[in-house]
């Protein structure tokens, strides 16, 4: 390193030192928001991720059984020592009223386990001591099955992939291999696919409807553009619930749309509009329109009017000039608007719940069901994680496809 290089580095350091107080004070301005984000955003997401894999029930309720199961060979029914430990654990569980919790957890993986665990707990309470193996097997042959014990032993782990696998329609067989769930149980991939499809459809429609509006907003005289802008923004200032309810009023069997169609004799009977995919997509498209229009508009407004004129002067006809010169330059806004609407649509909950039918429920509706009705926080959190990962993956995919500089979210 020459003396000149060292001089240069010294100057560089001096510049950094001189700028440090300014950097610090600028950073301190952002501190309140960073703190808020940490508490209100980062922490809940971390908690969500943990909840999706947390597995406390079996560990807490059956500590002795799990110790006894450590040297079980896994091939045949375990010996009396394990049953004795289970009886001991269930006695404590009965006193603490935690047997039901265990039963519910095991029931996710082997149906019928809930009632079996509760019956066993009652049996143990009434019983006057061992040996327990026979008594358990008398209650049900399942207590002699190695599969039952394998599941219990597996659930002794602090974390479980069970919820995440379930959210992807997968499950772990008692022997530990991962297999696909079939039949009625396999619903979540379907729901996820439906969520992506509806979000994609809504994005497409907002783009088809919004792009011309954004263009007209750009070229309209100021006064007219102002009124149009107000009409675009007005829905944003109305509560989501109100807008959705308005669609219920419009779409229902005795609603305005049906009345008009009947009145004009366009249909002879009432159409089923509400509780359909059509209703869901229509209402969501309406609600999402501003989110697609605004980024496109902001990009369009920055494109000079001379661009189109230049293209025309060089020989391009009106439509050729538009598609070759103007449209490519609006791409950053189109991508930003579509991304915004797509990602927001993935998380829709109220609108499909009120306007959609049972076959239109999206991932969010299932999350709400698992939280409010089934109290299955693990599965709800897992569905949330899957949605989060899919969203991030789509975002990154877009970023790769069009380049980060091509997305203009502001």
């Amino acid at each position, binding site marked *: 390193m020459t003396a000149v290089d060292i001089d240069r580095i010294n100057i560089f350091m001096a510049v950094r030192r001189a700028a440090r107080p300014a950097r610090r004070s600028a950073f301190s301005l952002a501190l309140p928001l960073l703190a808020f984000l940490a508490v209100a955003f980062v922490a809940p997401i971390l908690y969500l991720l943990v909840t999706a894999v947390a597995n406390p029930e079996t560990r807490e309720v059956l500590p002795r059984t799990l110790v006894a199961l450590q040297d079980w060979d896994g091939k045949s029914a375990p010996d009396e020592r394990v049953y004795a430990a289970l009886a001991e654990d269930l006695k404590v569980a009965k006193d603490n009223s935690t047997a039901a919790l265990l039963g519910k957890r095991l029931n996710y993986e082997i149906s019928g386990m809930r009632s079996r665990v509760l019956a066993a707990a009652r049996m143990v309470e009434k019983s006057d001591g061992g040996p327990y193996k026979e008594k358990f097997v008398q209650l049900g042959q399942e207590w002699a099955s190695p599969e039952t014990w394998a599941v219990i032993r597996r659930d002794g782990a602090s974390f479980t992939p069970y919820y995440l696998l379930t959210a992807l329609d997968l499950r772990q067989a008692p022997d530990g291999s991962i297999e696909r769930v079939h039949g009625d149980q396999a619903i979540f991939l379907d729901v996820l696919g439906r969520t992506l499809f509806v979000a994609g459809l809504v994005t497409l429609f907002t783009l088809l409807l919004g792009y011309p509006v954004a263009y007209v907003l750009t070229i309209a005289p100021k006064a007219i553009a102002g009124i149009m802008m107000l009409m675009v923004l007005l829905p944003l200032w109305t509560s989501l619930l109100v807008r959705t309810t308005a669609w219920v009023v419009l779409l229902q069997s005795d609603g305005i749309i049906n009345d008009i169609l009947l009145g004009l004799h366009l249909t002879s009977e009432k159409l089923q509009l509400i509780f359909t995919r059509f209703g869901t997509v229509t209402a969501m498209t309406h609600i999402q329109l501003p989110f697609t229009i605004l980024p496109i508009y902001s990009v369009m407004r920055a494109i*000079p009017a*001379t*661009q189109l*004129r*230049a*293209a*025309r*002067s*060089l*020989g*391009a*006809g*009106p439509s*050729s*000039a538009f598609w*070759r*010169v103007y449209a*490519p*330059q609006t*791409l950053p806004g189109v991508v930003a608007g579509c991304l915004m609407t797509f990602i927001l649509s993935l998380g829709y909950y109220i609108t499909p719940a009120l306007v959609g039918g049972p076959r239109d429920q999206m991932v969010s509706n299932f999350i709400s069901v698992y939280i409010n009705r089934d109290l299955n926080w693990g599965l709800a959190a897992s569905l949330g994680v899957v949605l989060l990962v899919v969203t991030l993956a789509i975002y990154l995919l877009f970023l790769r496809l069009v380049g980060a500089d091509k997305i203009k979210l502001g």
Partner: protein
Amino acid sequence: MNFSQRRSFAADKPIDALVRFEDVKKSYDGVNFVVKDLNLDVRRGEFLTMLGPSGSGKTTTLMMLGGFERPTLGRILLDGRPVERLPPEKRNIGFVFQNYALFPHMTVAENVAFPLRYRGISGPAAAAKVREALGRVSLDTLGDRRPSQLSGGQQQRVALARALVFEPSLVLMDEPLGALDKQLRERMQIEIKQLQTSLGITMVYVTHDQSEALTMSDRIAVFHDGRIQQLADPETLYNEPANRFVASFIGENNTLSCTLMGREGDLGIVRMADGSTFKAGSSSTSGTGAEFSLSVRPESIALAGSGAGTDVNRMTGTVRDVFFLGDHMRLSLEALGGQLVTARIPARRVGPFAPGDAVTLECNVRDCRLLEA
């Protein structure tokens, strides 16, 4: 005006100009006319500049020629053919815009190749033309860059190459150098002029910068208030302004009020505000007693006795300000009944002047002109 009348009108006027404006009027609101009664011929191969302040109608005129605005009344003939209703893409006119209007999502070469695709030129033929066009503006090596990676001057050249690549017979330019710094602007002026001469194309150039207009043009049309005030070559425009507006807009000018007393050949004899008698060139036919403005350029005024000739107008006054400007001095004199007269005097001849000094100045009568007040 009905169709048959228009036809006969065209028939009895031989078309020798590349562009002809015939009684063109343009109004956006139906009340105010931005262009009022425009008649102008652009000759083949000439560099014609439309010069004027903003709002004078020069840009609107250019836009009508380019096809972006339609005349409210009147006709525009291009090569003898009326084109008012022809869309811009059918006119085959090169257009260089104020902000260059390069397409940011295309490379420089793609920008230049853009007009070729609409003329059925592609592949190696197009590539050769692009190379040639870029070479003409000395940008051969930058074809793969994006416009955003170029400097202002380079972007300007790309815009020029793009407007020339399809060999239009007419190129229009709308203040193309306005965004460049002074030095670059002066270099580009010369380059554009050389290109125009060597390619033999007709150029119509719009600017509000008079020195640009004087440097480049074969003829200059001075626009004001929607009308052409004077159409002439730069020297005539500078030395013989047709009216007060042209006199004050082109270069610097002293305009001094006076009254016509009589004539002496092509010279008018006038009485100045302080009663002294001046002589000045005049093309006016107004009678004695008419009010005029006597216009004289600051550089035509010299210190008395410094060789302006024998036939001179002479004035004495008190110095207001003196500024030293390197090669010359600017002297502001209060003379001729309290009017301010500005003179540019070669610096080496000037003695030490101070505000308040009494000085006598003179100017040749041939350098003074009478303009309608």
